[in-house]
């Protein structure tokens, strides 16, 4: 069974380790915060200028001056801090943030990512994504394996304008966990009940399958 967005987020949450500062992108990545183990210390950074982000406020307690990068009202946790945009990107560019989790429209087997523009159709802008992917040591992409037409988004080469080159290390989709290296996608885990063949069929890029591929655990 292919994973839904919440289960993708839950699987990615296992990659979040004790002591990490983590930047979560908009969409599935935002859900990751709901599944991080409670016995580890993690701080979430939002590039609009907050470290130590907490859950959404209770009704009536929302503050227009306290939002995340998705412009949603949020709260802060004890130990949180606010800062300006240049400082925020010093944290990112300076590699002080340990893990970046973001969405993508396409990834390619050499680690390129495209997620900001569909020429002639959708031009929303890259926001902080180009800075994040150019600098983060550890980038995990959360995405659907195929588009609505069933076409693979895990490609030999991206077709859309790039956000960054050679930067993606790991991809978690509704079907699989993939490691990106040696100009290929290495299959690490399968979604429960999804066969290697199904993953192979949904992957346009080179897929390397070595030995028995375990099912994901959560």
């Amino acid at each position, binding site marked *: 069974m292919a994973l839904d967005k919440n289960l993708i987020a839950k699987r990615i949450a296992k990659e979040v380790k004790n002591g990490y500062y983590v930047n979560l992108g908009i969409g599935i990545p935002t859900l990751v915060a709901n599944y991080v183990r409670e016995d580890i210390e993690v701080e979430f950074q939002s590039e609009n200028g907050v470290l130590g982000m907490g859950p959404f406020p*209770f009704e009536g307690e929302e503050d227009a001056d306290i939002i*995340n990068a998705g412009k949603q009202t949020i709260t802060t946790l004890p130990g949180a801090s606010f800062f300006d945009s240049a400082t925020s990107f010093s944290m990112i*560019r300076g590699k002080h943030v340990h893990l970046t989790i973001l969405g993508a429209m396409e990834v390619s087997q050499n680690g390129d990512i495209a997620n900001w523009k569909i020429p002639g159709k959708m031009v929303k802008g890259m926001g*902080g994504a180009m800075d994040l992917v150019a600098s983060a040591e550890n980038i995990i992409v959360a995405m659907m394996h195929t588009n609505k037409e069933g076409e693979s988004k895990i490609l030999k080469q991206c077709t859309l304008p790039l956000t960054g080159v050679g930067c993606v290390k790991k991809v978690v989709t509704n079907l699989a966990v993939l490691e990106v290296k040696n100009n290929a996608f290495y299959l690490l885990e399968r979604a429960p009940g999804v066969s290697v063949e199904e993953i192979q069929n949904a992957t346009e890029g080179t897929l390397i399958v070595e030995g028995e591929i375990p099912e994901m655990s959560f």
Partner: protein
Amino acid sequence: MINKKVNNVEEALKGVENGMTLMLGGFGLCGIPENAIAELVKRNINELTCISNNAGVDDFGLGLLLQKKQIKKMISSYVGENQEFERQMLSGELEVELTPQGTLAEKCRAAQAGFPAFYTPAGFGTEVADGKETREFEGKMYVLEPAFKADFAFVKAWKGDAAGNLIFKGTARNFNANMCGAAKITVAEVEELVPVGELDPNNIHIPGIFVQRIFQGTNYEKRIEQRTVRKNQ
């Protein structure tokens, strides 16, 4: 104390003319200079180049200037919340320069700090780097990005004093702090203009030297773009 206080938004915007390049603080609708934007609309100053992370929403923030077609060119990182913006961009009426958010912030900071340009890894290998100088440092590629040059910076702070000292609240600091002193004239509007001496010098976010004019803002709407809440227990 060098007095930066002006009496109102009309005085604060003295010298703003058609065709100028303006910086406007804020992230989404958080911390935008609402009074300055309203005055730009009222005076119908047009052919503007606006440097702002976002372009407001259809009926608020910079969306108000877009509605009246006062903006010739936008320099932003993310413009996804504004349909009129998208229409003007796709039809070619509006020139748009999309810039990675960290690069946008640093182009402000570089102008503030007197750096003509800087190298950043953001955008290397993408269309953002087209036509720009690139260079390798320790095996990694970087793109040369010039500092912004702007006529006015309009910022909004929480508290300020006549010396021009500013304190921001929450995530409303964002680009506001980086734009102070990054243009020929920086105009700060504040929610609370307090008597000089009241702000603790230890807690000033932006020293007054970066601000040329400051005024007590009025009628802040502080609209929330995405109201997300938990249910009360």
